[in-house]
C-alpha cells in the first residue's frame, strides 16, 4: 500500500519563472517565503490569520488586478510574479500613501529602530511623500500604565486586534470610526487605561509601527555572572532567530535574554535544580546526562530480619535488574533527545533548545548539561522563548531537530511500536505534526470523532471521562505516553476527554497513518488492541463502582480516589508496630509506612501509598520516573533524580525522600569520584516481590489489611449496593 497518496497533495506553481512544489492550501505568500522569495507585508503576521488589508504583499497572477498573496491559496499552474515593475510601483505608491500620514520617526523607530513601515519605505527609496499629510490628528492615548498608544502612527493593519482576539482571546481591541478618523479602539472607544485591557502586551508585540509601544516600567534581568552578556534590542534583531520579532518587545525584555559562554567542563545546568530559563545553543557541543546513579533502592526480602544491617544501599543497576526493565527503554528529558536507559548520555549541538519544560512549566531540571567544547548559548526567560516559538522558521527548526533525533526513540520507547520498520518511521518523521496546547486546553473531547493518535512530548495530559454527576480522572500522561488509540481502534469516537494540564506539546499521527500502521504491522495492532481492551475494561469497571457507591464523607476524605488502602482495624490492633518493622525489613531499613493517619469509623487509614486512581504525584516528574505501568501500583523508577516534586504533590504525605550516600563522578573534576548524598523518592510498592505486603503478612492480630476501599466500605456505607 502506498503511503505517498496520503500525504498532502502537492501543487506546482511558478514563482518569478521558477517552478516550485508546495502543499495544496498553502498561501502564495508562504509558498514564496519557503522558496526563498520573501514578499514584503505589513498586516500579515505568521501566527495570526491573514486578512490581506495592507495590500503590500500583492503579486501579479495574470488576473485583471493584483492579488494579495497572504490570503490567496496556490492553484495548480499558477504563474506568480512578485517583482515586476507593475507590482513594485503599486507597492511603492501604497507605502508612500502610508508614509504621508506617518509621524516619522515614530516612537518605535526612535526607540528600537525597527518600525516595519519606515524600514520598508526606506528600502523603497521613499523620503519625502508627495501626498498631503493628514490634517486631523487621531490623537495619542497615554492612559495605560504599560503601553503607549499613538493613534497617528496606526496603519490599521489590525494585527493588534487579531492578537487581542485570536491569540489572547481578550476581545478588548476593535475598530472605530470611518474614513480619516478610523482607528483602533479599546472596548467602546474608552481610554486604554480605563478599558478592560489587562495589559498582556500582545497588541504591542503585534504592532508593526510605533502605534503601540512599551513604556519601560520594570527591568527584568538574568544577566548575572562574568560570562553573561546582555543585549540591546538592535543587536538581537540582527540575529536570525529573532527575525520578525517586535523590537519594542525585545526592548522591554532585553534583560530576559543573555548570551553566555561556557568553558569545556563547565556545568550549564544541573538535574533536580529549579529554574525558569531555557537554553538555546549557538556554538559548541554539550553533553547531557543523568548523574543520578542508575540503581535501585535495594530490596532483599524480609527473611534475613534480625541480622541485616540497618543502613540501606543503592544496588548498582547491573546487579539488580527488575524483570520488567530488561527491554530497551529511554528516559524522557527536557531536550530534543531522549536518553537511553543503559547509557544515559547524549550530545547537544548548535540549534538545540533545552530546558523548555523548566522554562514553560517551572519543573525541576531533568538532566545535567555540561559544556564539552566552548559553548555559546542564549539563556532566556519564558516570554522570550514564547515569542521565539511564534516564529515559524524557528519552530520548524526545533521541530526538525525533534523529528530527526527523538521521534524514533520516542516511538520505540513504547513497547508496542518496537516492531515498526525503519522505513515506516522515516515516513512518520515526515508526516507527523507537532502541536502545542496551553494549560487547560482540550486536546480531544469525549464524543468527538477520533481521527488522530497522539504521543506526549512535553507536559502532562489529563485523561478524564464524564459520568453522571462529575468528571472521573482516568490517568495523567506524560512524555513517552500515548493516547487516542481507543477511539481509533473502536468506533471512531473519543471515549474520554484529554486536557492539557500545563504547556503540552504532542506529536500527532493522523488517523490515516495510524490505520496504515495497523495494517502493516499486525503485532503493533495486537499489542495496542490488548492495551485498549484493558483500558476500556478498567474504565468500564470504574464507572460501575462509581455508580454503586454512596458518595458522602467517603469522598471528603479522598478515599474515593484510592485503589488500595492499608487499613488497620483499631479494635484488633494492639499498636505493636510489627507492620512498620516488617516494612522496614522488606525495604532495607527504610519504612514506607507510618502507622498514623486519618480515621474512618473503627479503621485507621495508615500513611502508605493509596495507589490513587488520580495520582497527583505523577504530575510534574521531570524525568517521568514515577509512573504506573499496566498494573495497580505507582512505581518510582530508579532514574529518580530526587527533586522531591512527587513528595510535595502527594496530598497524603505518602512519598518520602530518603538520602543515600553514593560515589558519583565529580563533575567539577572529571575522572574523579566523590561521595555525595543522593535523594531518592520512595513509596509503598505493595511488596510486589512477595506474595502479599509485608505489613499485612506480619500483623499478628489480623488487624492490617490492604483493601479496595470501594468494596470494603460499601456495605458499611450504603447497605451492600456494591457489585
Amino acid at each position, binding site marked *: 500500500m502506498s503511503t505517498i497518496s496520503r500525504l498532502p497533495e502537492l501543487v506546482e506553481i511558478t514563482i518569478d519563472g521558477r517552478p516550485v512544489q508546495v502543499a495544496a492550501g498553502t498561501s502564495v505568500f508562504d509558498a514564496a517565503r519557503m522558496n526563498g522569495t520573501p514578499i514584503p507585508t505589513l498586516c500579515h503576521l505568521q501566527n495570526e490569520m491573514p486578512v*490581506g*488589508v495592507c*495590500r503590500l504583499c*500583492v503579486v501579479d497572477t495574470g488576473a485583471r*488586478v*493584483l492579488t*494579495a498573496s497572504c490570503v490567496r491559496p496556490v492553484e495548480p499552474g499558477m504563474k506568480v510574479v512578485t517583482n515586476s515593475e*507593475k507590482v513594485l*510601483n*503599486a507597492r511603492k*505608491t*501604497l507605502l508612500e*500613501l502610508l508614509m504621508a500620514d506617518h509621524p516619522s520617526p515614530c516612537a518605535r523607530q526612535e526607540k528600537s529602530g525597527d518600525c516595519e513601515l519606515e524600514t520598508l519605505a526606506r528600502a523603497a527609496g521613499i523620503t519625502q511623500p*508627495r*501626498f*498631503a499629510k493628514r490634517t486631523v490628528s487621531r490623537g495619542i492615548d497615554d492612559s495605560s500604565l504599560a503601553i503607549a498608544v499613538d493613534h497617528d502612527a496606526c496603519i490599521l493593519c489590525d494585527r493588534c486586534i487579531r492578537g487581542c482576539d485570536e491569540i489572547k482571546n481578550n476581545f478588548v481591541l476593535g475598530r472605530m470610526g470611518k474614513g480619516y478618523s478610523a482607528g483602533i479602539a479599546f472596548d467602546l472607544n474608552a481610554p486604554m487605561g480605563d478599558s478592560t485591557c489587562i495589559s498582556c502586551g500582545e497588541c504591542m508585540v503585534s504592532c508593526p509601527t510605533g502605534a503601540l509601544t512599551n513604556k519601560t516600567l520594570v527591568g527584568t534581568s538574568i544577566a548575572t555572572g562574568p560570562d553573561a552578556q546582555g543585549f540591546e534590542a538592535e543587536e538581537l534583531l540582527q540575529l536570525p532567530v529573532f527575525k520578525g520579532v517586535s523590537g519594542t518587545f525585545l526592548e522591554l525584555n532585553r534583560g530576559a535574554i543573555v548570551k553566555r559562554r561556557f568553558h569545556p567542563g563547565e556545568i550549564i545546568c544541573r538535574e533536580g535544580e529549579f529554574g525558569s530559563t531555557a537554553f538555546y545553543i549557538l556554538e559548541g557541543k554539550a553533553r547531557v546526562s543523568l548523574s543520578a546513579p542508575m540503581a535501585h533502592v535495594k530490596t532483599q526480602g524480609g527473611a534475613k530480619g534480625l541480622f541485616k544491617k540497618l543502613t540501606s544501599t543503592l544496588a548498582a543497576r547491573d546487579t539488580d535488574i527488575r524483570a520488567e526493565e530488561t527491554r530497551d527503554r529511554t528516559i524522557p528529558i527536557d531536550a530534543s533527545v531522549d536518553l537511553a536507559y543503559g547509557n544515559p548520555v547524549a550530545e547537544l549541538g548548535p540549534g538545540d533548545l533545552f530546558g523548555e519544560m523548566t522554562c514553560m512549566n517551572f519543573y525541576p531540571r531533568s538532566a545535567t548539561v555540561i559544556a564539552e567544547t566552548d559553548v555559546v548559548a542564549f539563556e532566556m526567560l519564558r516570554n522570550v522563548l514564547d515569542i521565539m516559538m511564534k516564529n515559524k522558521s524557528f519552530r520548524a527548526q526545533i521541530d526538525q531537530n525533534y523529528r530527526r533525533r527523538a521521534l524514533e526513540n520516542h516511538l520505540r520507547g513504547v513497547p508496542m511500536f518496537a516492531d515498526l520498520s525503519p522505513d515506516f518511521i522515516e515516513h512518520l518523521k515526515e508526516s507527523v505534526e507537532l502541536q502545542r496546547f496551553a494549560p487547560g486546553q482540550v486536546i480531544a473531547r469525549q464524543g468527538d470523532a477520533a481521527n488522530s493518535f497522539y504521543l506526549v512530548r512535553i507536559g502532562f495530559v489529563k485523561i478524564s471521562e464524564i459520568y453522571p454527576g462529575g468528571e472521573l480522572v482516568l490517568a495523567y500522561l506524560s512524555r513517552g505516553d500515548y493516547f487516542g488509540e481507543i477511539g481509533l481502534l473502536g468506533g471512531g469516537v473519543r471515549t474520554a476527554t484529554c486536557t492539557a494540564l500545563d504547556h503540552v506539546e504532542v506529536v500527532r499521527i493522523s488517523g490515516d497513518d495510524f490505520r496504515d500502521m495497523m495494517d502493516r504491522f499486525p503485532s503493533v495492532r495486537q499489542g495496542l488492541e490488548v492495551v485498549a481492551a484493558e483500558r476500556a475494561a478498567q474504565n468500564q469497571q470504574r464507572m460501575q463502582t462509581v455508580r454503586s457507591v454512596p458518595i458522602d464523607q467517603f469522598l471528603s476524605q479522598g478515599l474515593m480516589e484510592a485503589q488500595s488502602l492499608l487499613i488497620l482495624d483499631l479494635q484488633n490492633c494492639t499498636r505493636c508496630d510489627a507492620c512498620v518493622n516488617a516494612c522496614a525489613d522488606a525495604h532495607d531499613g527504610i519504612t514506607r509506612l507510618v502507622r498514623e493517619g486519618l480515621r474512618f469509623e473503627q479503621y485507621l487509614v495508615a500513611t502508605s501509598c493509596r495507589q490513587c486512581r488520580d495520582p497527583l504525584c505523577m504530575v510534574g516528574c521531570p524525568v517521568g520516573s514515577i509512573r504506573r505501568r499496566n498494573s495497580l501500583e505507582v512505581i518510582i523508577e530508579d532514574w529518580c533524580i530526587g527533586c522531591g516534586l512527587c513528595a510535595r504533590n502527594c496530598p497524603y504525605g505518602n512519598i518520602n525522600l530518603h538520602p543515600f550516600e553514593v560515589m558519583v563522578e565529580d563533575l567539577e573534576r572529571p575522572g574523579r569520584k566523590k561521595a555525595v548524598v543522593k535523594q531518592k523518592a520512595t513509596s509503598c510498592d505493595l511488596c510486589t516481590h512477595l506474595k502479599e505486603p509485608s505489613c499485612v503478612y506480619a500483623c499478628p492480630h489480623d488487624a492490617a489489611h490492604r483493601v479496595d476501599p470501594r468494596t470494603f466500605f460499601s456495605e458499611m456505607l450504603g447497605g451492600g449496593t456494591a457489585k
Partner: protein
Amino acid sequence: MTDLLVRWTHGGLPEKQYRADLALIDELCQAMSLTSICGLGQIVPAPVQSVLKHFREEVDAHVLKGKCPSGICFTAAARAGEAQRVGIRP
C-alpha cells in the same frame, strides 16, 4: 486624490506642479485599481482616468490658465454651487 483634484479646480497652477500632479495621479490611479481590496475601490479612479484621457485639453485649460472653454466654470454662480458640493470656500 480629492485633495489634488480640488487644488486643480482653483485654476492657475504652475505648469511644473501640474506635470508632477499628473504623474502622481496616474500612479495613484494605477495603484488603486490594481490593489484595492474592494471592487468599488478598484473602479474609483475610472472617472478621473476617463476625463484625463478624453478631455485632456479642457483639463489643461482649466488648471493652467483658469479658463473654461465651454464657458461653464469660473462664473460666480458655478463657483458658488461647486464650492458647496466639494467643500471649498469660494
